[in-house]
């Protein structure tokens, strides 16, 4: 539903006035499992073939990328050299820089990116693929690998009309198949509100991604009765999962509706109960005999905002218990390989952090602590569960249009909503889609990552 500001902008007066006074002009973002309508341009550094092979596995036939080399420029009417242009607007530009080694090679990236900035259609994509910095065996390599991150983040702030840019760092040994889930997620509308981000894809022995990636798998989503949790459940079900929707008994009516609509099942449960994990596992074993859990998504969360000067122990404890301690206990119990209905090897643990936990937020010391704690869970568990093929990741939503953010006073809300590169709030489904990407069995190489779903919010990096 459009907010008041967007209603104004789409009115005749707003349309005339907004560009003149420099008001943000958000566009309706492309969402869902939808590729851009324009072509996917591919540019690869000499020797780089990873992205080309991944696109081939995805059955995407790329179009040639236009380069801004000095000799390719043609003078305009006034004799100024103009860079070459795309004949037709492209839907995305993928630059495979996985063989990058020297600083001067960044010129290739500039040359490919310059025509794309104006040549990419609204809600189009820039995807950069570069070697992960930790793999560098020399100072120049490490420097240039990092340099791509700065390029990506700065470019994100220049792109308009819902175009996003993101950087995929690939570890040595990554196969094209292991890259497919990430590449498809970035190209499709699923990544609409992920912008200016970079994360790592490691090696994994997987087949290429598919639209029904979760078919036959069981996914537990906590806090699933409404809002972001309900969207996570929907996305997982769309991708084929049997969803076990978990929420507190007070939210039971909405929970039952979500579960029944998705042909999943509902489990009424306070996740802070000592036997919460046992009941989740028992429910999985009962509803789907003989099956283990593919994934648990720890979405349930609460806020009890107060300035620290006014913060009592009950507000403090409630937030830390629900948002952090409960999931630590539940993970621990579900990781017991002998527990029927526990987490399967090759499974997924997904946390929900927040930009409040990364950048901090006034009035949210308890919430910020809990959400930064989620990052700690990811960092600790990911390497330790790698041998079981279990990935551990988190999303960190920025301003998402939910009941929670609707309660923010109007002026502050408007500021939070607009101060990102996409000049609008994200939708709950944007968070859900990023989680769905983590859940994909083809995303086995993605672990230990915290992906911000914030439209490249100006605060918090």
């Amino acid at each position, binding site marked *: 539903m459009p907010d008041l500001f967007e209603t104004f902008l789409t009115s005749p007066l707003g349309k005339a006035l907004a560009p003149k006074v420099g008001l943000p002009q958000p566009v309706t973002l492309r969402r869902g499992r939808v590729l851009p309508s324009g072509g996917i341009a591919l540019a690869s550094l000499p020797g780089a073939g990873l992205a080309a092979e991944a696109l081939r596995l995805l059955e995407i036939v790329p179009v040639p990328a236009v380069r801004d080399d000095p000799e390719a420029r043609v003078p305009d009417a006034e004799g100024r050299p103009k860079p070459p242009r795309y004949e037709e607007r492209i839907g995305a530009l993928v630059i495979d820089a996985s063989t990058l080694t020297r600083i001067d090679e960044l010129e290739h990236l500039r040359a490919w990116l310059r025509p794309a900035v104006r040549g990419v259609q609204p809600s189009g994509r820039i995807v950069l693929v570069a070697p992960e910095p930790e793999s560098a065996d020399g100072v120049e390599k490490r420097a240039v690998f990092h340099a791509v991150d700065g390029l990506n983040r700065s470019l994100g702030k220049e792109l308009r009309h819902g175009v996003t840019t993101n950087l995929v760092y690939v570890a040595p040994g990554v196969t094209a198949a292991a890259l497919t889930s990430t590449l498809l997620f970035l190209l499709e509308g699923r990544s609409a509100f992920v912008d200016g981000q970079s994360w790592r894809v490691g090696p994994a022995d997987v087949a290429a991604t598919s639209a029904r990636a979760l078919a036959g798998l069981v996914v537990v989503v906590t806090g699933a009765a409404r809002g972001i949790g309900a969207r996570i459940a929907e996305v997982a079900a769309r991708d084929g999962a049997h969803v076990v929707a978990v929420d507190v*008994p007070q939210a*039971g009516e909405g929970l039952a509706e979500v*579960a029944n609509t998705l042909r999943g099942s509902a*489990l009424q449960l306070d996740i802070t109960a000592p036997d919460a994990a046992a009941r989740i596992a028992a429910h999985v*074993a009962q509803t789907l005999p003989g099956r283990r859990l593919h994934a648990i998504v720890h979405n349930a969360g609460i806020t009890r905002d107060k300035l620290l000067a006014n913060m009592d122990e009950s507000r403090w404890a409630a937030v830390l218990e629900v948002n952090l301690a409960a999931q630590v206990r539940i993970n621990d119990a579900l990781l017991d390989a002998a527990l029927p209905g526990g987490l399967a090897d090759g499974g997924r643990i997904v946390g929900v952090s927040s930009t409040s936990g990364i950048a901090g937020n006034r009035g949210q010391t308890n919430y910020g602590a809990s959400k930064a704690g989620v990052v700690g869970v990811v960092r600790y568990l990911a390497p330790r569960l790698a041998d079981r093929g279990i990935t551990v990741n988190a999303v960190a939503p920025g301003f998402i249009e939910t009941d929670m953010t609707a309660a923010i006073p109007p002026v502050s809300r408007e500021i939070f909503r607009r101060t990102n590169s996409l000049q609008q709030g994200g939708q709950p489904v944007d968070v859900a889609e990023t989680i769905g990407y983590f859940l994909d069995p083809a995303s086995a190489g993605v672990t230990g990552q915290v992906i911000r779903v914030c439209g490249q919010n100006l605060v918090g990096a």
Partner: protein
Amino acid sequence: MSDRTAVIVGGNRTPFAKIGGPYAHASSRDLLIAAIDGLVARFGLAGETVGEVAAGAVLRHTRDFNLTREAVLGSALAPETPAVDLAQACATGFETVTYVANKIRAGQVDVGIAGGVDSASDAPMAANEGLRRALLRLNAARTLQDRLLALTALRPGHVVPEAPVVREPRTGLSMGEHQAVTTKAWRITREAQDELAAASHHNLAATWASGFFDDLVTAYLGLATDGLLRADTSTQKLAKLPPVFGDGPEATMTAGNSTALTDGAAVVLVAEEGYARRRNWPVLARIVDVEVAAVDFVSGAEGLLMAPAYAVPKLLDRQGLGLGDLTYVEIHEAFAATVLSILAAWSDDEFCRTRLGREGAYGTVDRDRLNVTGSSLATGHPFAATGARIAATLAKLLHRSGPGSRGLLSICAAGGQGVAAVLEGM
């Protein structure tokens, strides 16, 4: 005897609400759909066809002639799921369980849903008899003159509809008035009734706090716990209420120790044991045996709500059991005095000799085993829903006690009837 065993797998109900409360605008069908959908969600049955859904309602509109089938069509179950309406007044909610269990034992279905619903808020208002006759005459009139004549028969008083009352057609007495006679006959004191009522509230409050109902109740229309529950009530507070049934200084029955008019729905999932185990469903308790008794209350020979006093001994004798063999006893609290009158009768030598044909007193029920999670005084009593509420709760209690533990439930009903059943923990 069939080698097929019918077991209770789980249950679901809406929280029960006082008449005119949060469910004031929900129809009986809405409530039944909510109860079914909560159960469907709990067991992941959306889109599935189950063998049969049996339910009923005591108060019902003519438009609800196919209530259960309509509820199934409005639910998340597959539309190919058959349904049946049954009625046995307040025993409906367990008679449906009996019906499904018997079909399972007979091999006709493997799984079914049984329950009931009642909405005192959605009760039909009958057209007042004078209006009804005038309108029928108007309808039959053929000439303008006849029509005008028919219209002149209308009186202002005719527009007042007849509100529903729980009144016995053959005696003209309400249920409370009937019970007041029984209460007096068995000399049940006000204090004993208030004590039972307070215990019902305290037991129910503790059960809610323990999370016991997490997998038995699904919130509905913003109500997440039973609306009639008063966790902070006490015998002192209850003692202050004025009597509402009975006459003079001996009147002891108050709004506090009588059930209130209630809106709500409850269902249980019943399955053949092997089928349930193949699906890895929790096998809570098996339905061992059921007995329905009826008494002659019209002549005054027996109290209206005393049928369970007859049904239970007959049932337990048939199973070779005594009151002492039961881990839990659920006696529906239509009124606190109903429970106490039944217990008093079983302790009375003369009653047991002359009415039950026994050698002496039948026995006593340990209060620690009676209605341990609270009963209808605290939970409320949407008539046809109560049987399914008790069945699911008792099955879960027995499952916790372990295999072989036995529980008894009894429910009195209008028309001088009463149902009793034995469940056994699995």
